[in-house]
């Protein structure tokens, strides 16, 4: 048996372990699920150590002697006090430092999610499609405006927003299903070509 076939057989075994959940929850799936979590965590830890800790903490403090970075390193260690009942409050310091960035979120959020979207929505209505987009945007926005009861003519107009959203969710649903199906095709191709194909050959 070649090393490539052995590697593919290992991959096939774990693929089938996960697929076995389609029949029902079983020990093979449970074991594979826990292994997926364990390997992903180990992978994240090793890469964080290699790509973040070594260049930004170890090398900067020990090799470049930038001792001021001991302060954020100690702040980072304070994260671990989250599990302590008595000293849990210490973990608020690194969290607060991370939360500072919400200050950036205010102007950036206004720009990216509100102003840019409004600018794109406020174009001259030259075609029927542009009219439909404008109508839909207003209707969807009003659908989430709960200060006025959705009744009468206003309620009927607001209801148009619901239909727009249903079409939008349907489109997203269709695209997501297609993405998942392409993954499924990939796994089946792996089992057929790379495993069964290699065994037969």
């Amino acid at each position: 048996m070649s090393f490539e076939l052995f590697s593919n057989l290992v991959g096939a075994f774990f693929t089938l372990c996960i697929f076995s959940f389609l029949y029902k929850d079983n020990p093979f799936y449970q074991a594979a699920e826990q292994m997926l979590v364990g390997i992903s965590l180990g992978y994240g830890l090793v890469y964080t150590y290699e790509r973040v800790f070594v260049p930004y903490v170890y090398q900067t403090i020990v090799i470049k002697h930038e001792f001021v970075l001991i302060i954020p390193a100690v702040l980072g260690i304070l994260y671990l006090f989250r599990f302590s009942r008595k000293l849990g409050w210490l973990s608020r310091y690194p969290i607060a430092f991370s939360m500072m960035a919400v200050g950036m979120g205010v102007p950036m959020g206004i720009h990216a999610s509100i102003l840019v979207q409004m600018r794109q929505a406020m174009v001259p209505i030259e075609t029927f499609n542009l009219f439909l987009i404008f109508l839909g945007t207003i209707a969807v926005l009003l659908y989430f405006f709960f200060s006025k009861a959705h009744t009468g003519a206003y309620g009927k107009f607001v209801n148009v927003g619901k239909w727009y959203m249903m079409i939008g969710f349907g489109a997203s649903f269709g695209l997501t299903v297609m993405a998942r199906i392409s993954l499924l095709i990939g796994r089946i191709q792996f089992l057929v070509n790379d495993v069964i194909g290699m065994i037969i050959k």
Partner: protein
Amino acid sequence: MKKTIPLLIVIIGGLIWVAWAFSPHYVLQEVFYNQFYLPWVYAMSSFAMLLGVLSLTMMHSAKIKRKAPKWQFSWFFFASFIATCLAGFIGGTQKGGLFMWMFENVQMPMSATMFSLLAFYMASAAYKAFRARSPEATVLLIAAIVVMLAQVPLGVKISKHLPTISQWILDVPNLASKRGIMLGVGLGSVATSLKILLGIERSYLGGGD
């Protein structure tokens, strides 16, 4: 000390960030952002990963200790976690090593299969929605079917207009609904950010005194 100083860090730091977004001044762009914030955040973030490791380790060891339902499978978590760490720390992360072999032949096939499983469950959810027989669910499914069929050769064989209709759905009603939702989400996130910045929203500090 326990709540006031973290709150002040958020408020003062947050206001500096607001100034950073508006002003191209050297002190804000270079001294604050490049020389202070980025190196500090990088130095802190590696320890946040340890928090995740510790949290999962504590959860699984407690499960084994209490002999909670399906506790035996927690050993698989520990075994695979330790094996990956040993392979990475001792053997290195270069291609051709055990670490990358485990990623390519164990982690990657399992995560791809896990995501592909969703295709079956989404199909079953679509069937349930269809059985609901509400006009909204029908519209949702019709839009989904048109978009899906337009992406495969079969769709073009059914009708050569299907890709055009699908593109229209994506460009017009889908765009309008996503824009409306995006505006709502934007307004909500800005309001929440302002509440945090002004010290009204403090749930991120956790409970206790």
